[in-house]
Structure formats: C-alpha cells, structure tokens
C-alpha cells in the first residue's frame, strides 16, 4: 500500500479509537450542578419584596449571582454535598469575601416548580433568600409601544 493510503487508514482507525476512549472517559466526568437561570423569590423570604429574582449566570465552576437589584457577585464553585436519601443537596460557592450556601430541594407537590432553594450569604453581608426555579421561561414579547417619553 502507498504511504498516503496507510496514513489515511491509520488516521481513521486511530481517530475512531481515540474518540471512543474520550467519550467513554468523558461520560464519567461530572461537571458542576447547573444552577443557572432565574430563581423567583418566595413570599416567605423576610425583608425582600415579592417579585424579586435571583439571577445566576454559570459557566461551570464560575458563577455570577445577582440577588435582586444588588450588583452581581462573582463566585467560584467550592463544594457540593448531596443527600441522596432526601433528594436534596447543598452547594457552597465562595469568593474572597463571601460564602454563599445554596440548599436545594425538589418540589414534587408543585409541577410548575423545578426546585426550590435557600440562598444563605455569609461574610461581609448576611442575607437569606428563598427562591424557586420554574419551568422554561416564556419568551418576552417584542415591544411595539413607546417605551419612554422625554
């Protein structure tokens, strides 16, 4: 066989093997739990207006958490403690000044709610937020009315 033919066949053979290996190993990896999205504050949260949201943008271990109208805070994923029996888990997020503990539990009694969480912020500030994540958000309507008058 010519050299390019050998290269060609070995290329595909090797690529197939490597890809199989990568996918086999990769499927055992566990990325950080997905917390991203909008969490709606529950009515039983003290000192927080109803209708506030907790917004989380997450890229793996790197999170940006905005509690209500406060400016977003950057956190890094620290740890996760699942409680398999209760179906709950606790996630610890940290930055230089704060630890944000997120206690998450399923809400089987409400089909519209994916899960509920208690956000406990400790450090320079102390705050507790209770919020829930709902199903897929309906898209915002495209505005056609005047937005502002000046």
């Amino acid at each position, binding site marked *: 066989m010519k*050299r*390019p033919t050998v*290269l*060609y066949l070995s*290329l*595909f053979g090797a*690529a197939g093997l*490597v*890809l199989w290996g*990568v*996918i086999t*190993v*990769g*499927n055992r*990896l*566990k*990325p*950080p*739990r*997905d*917390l*991203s999205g909008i969490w709606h504050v529950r009515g039983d949260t003290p000192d927080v207006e109803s209708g506030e949201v907790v917004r989380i*943008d*997450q*890229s*793996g*271990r*790197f999170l*940006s958490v905005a509690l209500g109208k406060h400016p977003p805070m*950057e956190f*890094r994923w620290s740890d996760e403690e699942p409680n398999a029996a209760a179906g709950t888990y606790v996630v610890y997020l940290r930055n230089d000044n704060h630890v944000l503990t997120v206690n998450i539990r399923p809400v089987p009694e409400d089909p519209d709610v994916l899960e509920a969480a208690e956000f406990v912020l400790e450090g320079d500030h102390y705050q507790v937020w209770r919020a829930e994540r709902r199903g897929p958000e309906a*898209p*915002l309507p*495209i*505005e*056609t*009315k*005047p*937005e*502002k*008058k*000046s």
Partner: protein
Amino acid sequence: MHVTTVLILLLQLSVILALSRLMGNLAMRLHQPRVVGEMLAGIMLGPSLLGLVSPDAYEFLFPQGSVRLLNVLAQVGVILFLFLIGLELDPKLIRDRGHAAVVISHASIVVPFVLGAALTLVLYPLVFNDAPQMRFTAVALFMGAAMSITAFPVLARILTERDLQKTKVGALAITCAAVDDVTAWCMLAFVVAIGRAEGLGPGLVTAGLAGVYVLVMFFAVRPLLKRIQAVRGADRQRAGGTLAVVLLLTLASAAATEYIGIHALFGAFLMGAIMPKDPSFVRPITERVEDLTVTFLLPVFFAYAGLRTQIGLLDTPLLWALTGLIILVACLGKFGGSAVAAWVCGFNWRESAAVGVLMNTRGLMELVILTIGLQIGVITDAVFAMMVLMALATTAMTTPVLHWVYPRRMFHTAAVDDATAEAEFGVVVPVARAESGPGLAKAVALLDGPKEKRVKLYGLHLVEPEAREYLGLPIAARQTADDVFGPMLREAALLDLPAESVTFRTRDLASDIARVARAKRADLILMGAHQSLLGQAALGGIVHRVLTGADTDVAILVDRALPDTPRILVPFQGSPHDRLALDLARRIGAKAGAGVTVMRVGNAARKASSDADGESDGVTQWIVEDSSPVDAVLRHAGRFDLAVIGVGEEWGLMSHLFGFRAERVAREWPGSLLVVRKHQPVAELHPPTRAGPDHAEQPVAVHA
C-alpha cells in the same frame, strides 16, 4: 420625543454599520481580512467594551428586549449567507480531488475533531454545567466540529488577494476547505440533532426525517431548480421572479431543517449547494442576495455575536490559561493535521506549512457555529467567549504567518537580474483601463534608446479585491488581464517595443506599484493621470501616492493627442526633478527626431549670470524673463506639443494632502504633459551645501 422600539432599532443598525465598516477598513489597512475588524466591532459594541466603559450608553443603545430584533435580523442574515456559501460551492472541487487532496482534507477534519473532543475532557469539569443539553457526548462532538471548521470564504479571499489560487498550495487549500465546509455542516447537523434529541426515540425520528429531507432536496427540489434554470435561466427580465422563487425555496428548506431539529442553517446551505451552477443562472441571484447580506445583515450578526460575548467572564488566570489551551489545540489540530498530511503526501515543508496555515483560518464560520452552540445550550457563556477569541486569533494570524512561511510570490517571472537591468531602460506602466494602454505604450516607445540600452515596457495590472469580502472567489470577474493588456501589447508590438505584463490582486495599489518597480529594477514608473475622489487634482489619489512614495523615478502622462514628432518644452530651474525631465525629453527628442527647448525663467540678474540662449545637440536653451515661471510656461504653450516638467513649487506642482497643489500647469497646458519626479534617497534630500537651497544657479548640462 418618542423613543420607540423602531427608533432604537434604527439607531442600533446605524451604529453597527458605521463601526463595522470602520473596523473592517482598519483591518484591511493592517493587511487583515475585513472579517477580523467586523468581529472586533461586534465585540466592541457588546458588554466587553461598551458595556464596560459606558454602561449607560450600552443600556441606552441595547436595552433589554431590543436585542431580540437584532437576533432576528442576524439569523436571517446568516441563513442567506449560508445559502450563498452553498451556492458558491463548486462540486467539481469535491468530485475531482486528487489523491493528496483526499488525504489532506480528511486529516484536516479528523485531527482537529479528535483533539477538540479530547480537549473537552479538560474543559468539561471546569466550564460546563450539568445541564441536560450539556451531556458530555454532545459537548465533545460539538467542540470537535467547532475545532474542525475552516472559513472557506476568508481562505478563498486570502488566496485570491495573494494570487495563490492557481498555485499547487492554493488549489489544494481551497479544495480541502470546500470538503471541510460540507463535512462540518453535516457534522453540525448531527451534533445539533444529538443536542436537541431527548432520548433514542426522538433521535431516530430526527435522523429519519433528515434522511427524507435530503432525498426530497436531491430528487424533487433539484430537478425543479434545473427546470427553472432551463425556462428562466437567461431571461434577465424575469430575474426578479426567479429570485423570489429561489428565496422562497431557501426559506422553506431552512424552515424544514429547523422543524426537523437539525437547524435552519443546514437547510439554507443545502439549498445553495444543490442549485444548478450555471453562472448565467447563479450570478444574478448571488449578486442580488449578496449585497444586502454582506453589507447589511452580516454586520448585524457580528454585533449580535458581540453582544453575547462577555470577555469579562474570563476574569481568572485559569480561564485565560484555558483560552490559551483552546487556541493551542485549535492550531495544533488544524495546522498540524493539515501540514503533516501534506508533508506525508510529498509537499515540501514550506508548502505543507502554508496549507496548514490556510486551513487554520476560522473566521465567520466559527462564529456561526458558536452562536448555534450557545443557542442550543451546548456551551456556556465563558466557553463561547473563549472560542470567539480563538476564532479571532486563528483568523488574524493567518495572513502574517502565511507571509512568513510562504513569502509572497509577486511575479510569475523572476525578478530582473543585474545584467538585464544594465542592458535595458525598464519602464513599469500600471494600466487600469484598456483604453489608456496604447497611449502609454506610445509614450514608452518614445523613450526608447540605443540598442545597448533599449527601453522595455512592464505592463502592470493591479486589481483591487472586489467587495466580495466573504464569498472570496469572484463569480463575476471584471475585465480580465487580456482585456486590459490586449490593446497596449498590440500597440507595443506595432512599435517593436519589448513588453511583458504582470497581473495580481492587491489591497494597496500604490505600494505594490512601487514594489514591482523595485523588483523589476525599473528606471521609471510611467502612469496615466488620475482624478482623485477629493478635489480636482489631476495628480491626486493613487498617482499622488506613487509620485511621493515610490523609490523609482516617476512620470505621469497627461495625454492630449501626442503627435509622432512632438515639439518638446522642458521648463527648467535646475532641480533634480527638472534634470530628470530634461533627460527624458532628450530621449524622446532623439527617438522622435524632435527638437527640445529648455526654458529657464528668471529675472534680469539671473539672466545675466546664466548661460546665453543657444543650441546644443538638438536641445535649445531659452531664457525667459518673467516674475511667474508658471505664467511664462503657459504664455508660450501654443508653440509646443509636449511639456516635460519636474514637480516643484516653481511650477505649481508641490505635493499636498490630496494631490499636487495648484496644478495650474497641468490644468491649463493645452498639449500633452509629462510630469516627472526624480527619486531621491533620504540621504540626498538635504545635501550639505554652502551655496544655500537655490539650486537654480547650477549650470544646465547638455549632453549628447
């Protein structure tokens, strides 16, 4: 004042278009593809720059919710763009591949694909979430596909600009890129289907529907298009109707694939790919769709992608390290895979490296794939930002690295050697229009000298790349080199004038004219006059840039029916430019058997100190007393057919910002005019002299 959504949208579009053009032009000035500048413009408008520098302006320009409208426009733009990409796909490139092209094209897909998938092992635990759309298999396949894409349009454009498309390397790279394109979009359709499928059952349904769709496209839509081509192909009057039908089919195809679950872009691409490729049918469609898409909609896409790019998310050394790793793996996979395969197939290392560098260009296509990834949720915002930086880096590095590993071959012929340079009076003649060629050839013939130093004409046709920034290969070629050079070469043959021609594409006409003259060791650059865009300067624009920038003597011919035996006037004050004018006039006079009159203008004192009027070797000296040299020249204009005049303030021909100031002589001289500029090396520009700057007192040397 009502700030309506429409008003905001119009404002957004204006800002996007303006910045996009500005950055695109800037990128081209820096010898980068326009797409690099436009990608940067998008990022600048997003949270990474505008949002950081002026959050209020950002909030005003892109209020929440308004971006949805931009998204719609961007999606339509990319759908039409992918249709054009498919339309430009030459099936011959894929069908008629040589042995090497098959190996290299597949290696350039497989190696980066596998490396991209392997890289996911590192990235997955760090920058991906445990979301349903981000299952490892989907992420790994997506990263593989994103790594293996090549920006066919950018690559094609780089090849045409560097005149490499017909070389072995260029032909190979373009073939491989075409194969990569088709493969990558098919892979992407597969990956999107996997990402969206919610289990084996729906996955199989998607695969089945996709199969049916492809069959329908090939066995129902394609024959229909051929029928349309047969009936309406050449009918220009019905081109609008044909375009409407084709667009309708494109949208239907895109909608079908979106519904099936393999993304609308695949449908648009396949629609373009199955179109009949007869230029008379395709060209009008391409031209109509391309203008709007490339000029208007793609910048909106870049802006939309820029709004989604948050470089601020990369705020830790680890994330920047991962970005570096992504760029490294991307280059290693694409460059390494292609280059090694080319080397194994018998290319030398330079050619192999050039193929690798070209294949490593990702450009807009990468951005399209990444946006899809973000939309279907298979990548996170941080990964999107890192991959956008990778796309920018790999696109921006292509031209300089290519220049380094595969230096530009400007000419199909070798540069002129010493012996040839000594034996000829080389004249480089840039020709833009066929009709100016014969006049310039005639002027060159007049410069012919004795046998041992004959004049040689180097016709030069430099083509500025057309506005087809993304599609690369010109479908509608303008004048061919034969069209442009034909009349000039025929005239040269009639005049028994040795001539050769050179054509290539360039972004910088003036610099490349100077470079060609240098390589050909030419004695003179002879150009026709040129009207600049700004002002009335006949010696403006490119002409001005060559006159002031070339390191060769330059002559500009204002041809006003030059007779065979012209009466020649050389206004003379003694500057180096005037002396060159005199030399050239003497050549012309000797060749044409015409008399040369050297006119010196001065006051009585100067007249007294100068040589008296007289004649030597066919050159007549004539001293005229006048306070205005320009008036003196123009007053006697009727006695001469040709003025050969050096640039200089005394003749109203001083270099200015947009051309030569005044130019009264150029405007009002009724006959033909040859404006000349002597090249002076920097060391000679300000020679130490005790006599002061008035060079007019130097004696006129009149030699045979």
